[in-house]
């Protein structure tokens, strides 16, 4: 069993325009184990994406306090690729587009990065695995020969993130709003992909605004985040409750003084 632990995490970002530093995460605590699916919900601008990007190691997010531990080892000083090879995966909200590099070529490089130099994945094994996952995600073969994310529609990009997840098989996946911009059929396909990963060796943290995605990927634990902190943790029912009452309802119930965007 692997663990991912976030301890009293404080994170600052610098505003590009004003150059002011702003604290986004104000003491987040979270413990995940493989075999579990966690969901983080919360209103816009509350720090959910910041959490996932900080765990992955995006440079613009500065940890000012606290720690992130993977199997008890701090990963704060590790570069991004090392964190990835240690078992983390972030399905991004806005994946980068890279011309000239085909999807298939990229996937092989990512898989081989996890294997010893003298034991590259064979072309046959790779294609077998790829075809299986393409079918699962209802993606065409042609997608693998296109340049990485270049000219992909929103839905294609999300599917492609999940395809990578299935090919790379990390211990922990952070799924940042994989439901945004998806129609209902695509949402089902993407969920099917994630669900196929479920098992003792896989854990996921699902970031979403809406409860809808959680109808398809049942979480074991639901966290609610507001103003840079996790304010409530519960079972799958919590998501349903939020759907019914909204974030304002929960805020008032907890007696928090937090501005929600639409107030």
């Amino acid at each position, binding site marked *: 069993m692997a663990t991912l632990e976030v301890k009293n995490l404080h994170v600052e970002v610098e505003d590009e325009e004003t150059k002011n530093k702003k604290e986004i995460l104000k003491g987040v605590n979270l413990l995940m184990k493989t075999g579990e699916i966690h969901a983080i919900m919360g209103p816009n601008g509350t720090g959910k994406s910041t959490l996932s990007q900080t765990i992955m190691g*995006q440079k613009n997010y500065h940890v000012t306090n606290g720690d992130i531990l993977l199997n008890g080892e701090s990963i704060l000083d590790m570069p991004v*690729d090392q964190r990835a090879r240690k078992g983390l995966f972030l399905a991004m909200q806005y994946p*980068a587009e890279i*011309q000239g*590099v085909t999807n298939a070529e990229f996937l092989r*490089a*990512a898989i081989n990065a996890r294997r010893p130099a003298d034991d590259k994945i064979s072309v046959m094994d790779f294609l077998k695995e790829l075809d299986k996952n393409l079918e699962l995600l209802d993606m065409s073969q042609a997608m693998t020969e296109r340049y*990485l994310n270049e000219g992909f529609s929103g839905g294609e990009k999300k599917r492609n993130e999940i395809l990578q997840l299935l090919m790379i098989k990390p211990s922990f996946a952070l799924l940042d709003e994989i439901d945004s911009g998806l129609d209902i059929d695509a949402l089902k396909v993407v969920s099917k992909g994630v669900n196929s990963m479920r098992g003792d060796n896989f854990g996921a943290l699902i970031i979403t605004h809406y409860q809808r995605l959680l109808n398809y990927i049942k979480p074991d634990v639901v966290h609610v985040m507001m103003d840079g902190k996790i304010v409530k943790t519960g079972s799958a029912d919590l998501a349903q409750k939020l759907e019914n009452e909204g974030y304002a309802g929960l805020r008032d119930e907890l007696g928090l003084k937090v501005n929600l965007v639409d107030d």
Partner: protein
Amino acid sequence: MIDLENSEYEYGFHDDVKPKFTTGRGLTEETVRKISAEKNEPQWMLDYRLKSYHTYQKLAMPKFGPDLSDLDLENMLYYQKMTDKKYRDWDDVPDKMKETFDRLGVPEAERKYLAGSSAQYESEVVYHNMRNEFEKLGILFTDTDTALQEYPELFKKWFGKLVKPTDNKFAALNGAVWSGGSFIYVPKGVRCDIPIQSYFRLNAENSGQFERTLIIVDEGAKVDYVEGCTAPNYSSDSLHAAVVEVNVLRDAYCRYTTIQNWSDNVYSLETKRAAVLENATMEWVDGNLGSKVTMKYPSVYLNGENARGTMLSIAVASNGIHQDSGARMIHNAKNTSSSIVSKSIAQTGGSVDYRGTVRFGKHSDGSKAHVECDTIIMDDQSSSDTIPYNEIDNANVSMEHEARVSKISEEQLYYLMSRGISEEKATEMIVMGFVEPFTKKLPMEYAVELNRLISYEMEGSIG
């Protein structure tokens, strides 16, 4: 005996072949006369050489671009003939030269995928051959000196029509001392789908190579020509000043691919020009990986209606290298179109410039041009200039030009690294992707070779 002087540039070895004839160091009118006499040339060619020589003396060095002040023209070897004859069988080529070309993979490439192949060593072509099936179609492929002797009328009709000695100082120099190069004539309607290759090798220290290439693609014909260039590493500089003239007649097609990988003591100052008639197409594919200084702006004169011209280029400049290259598209007829795509990478202190011209003349109604220049500057030691000129004398034309210069994208790096790929590998992937539009145009074997070379160039550029 092969001497690996410099392990970083893998073609940097040289061998100790003694020339059969040389004009010695330096250039005088006497040198020019000696070259012509050695080659047994007709009077008109000697006159042409002498006229070029006098023009060369009058013209100033280029007033733009890289610094040429270190170029020592006084002590250069202008002509060196290494064999008494040209061979058609690799087994006949003297051992040392054959060894060199074997190491460069030239005979192997020929066996695998070429219609014809030639190899120039210093001033003269030492080997050339063409497969029988293509020879039977009437394609003439020989070195330029032989063409002057064997096809005097055809030669005189086309030689020097596109590039005049007055064009620039190094074109004039080439006119005076030219030697070697390829001559290709593809008869009407003959389509040669397999590439023909020439390989240019400079071996001696402080020497010059002045090949002269002349290609005529007759009406409806097609040719795909590839040239490669390498040289040994030396501490003193060598000069490569080629002139290339390509005539693409009605409905014909020519693709001219160059993989320039000179060692970093070679000045490569070339003049390349193509004239294209009705419905014909000229494609330049130009890879500049080596040299100390490159100045090269291949041009296409679109002289017939619906003529097309393209340039697809990459340039990589590392420490001590200044690549100043680009293209010139001159629209002289109706409904002509041109496209320039230039990809440049500057790293470890290299300078890479794009310099080009698109001109629409008075009679270019309905013509179009598209220019794209992209540059990645890998580190804070390197630099890049983009200098395009767009000159328009017609109201019924359209031109789009775009250029971008930036460092390697942080966003792309992060994305690839977040999938576990190391920074070095991720950088290489992004760079390979960046030049992919170019490699995709190369014959397969060249693409593989080029990827290897770039990958090699990029090594150590991280951290």
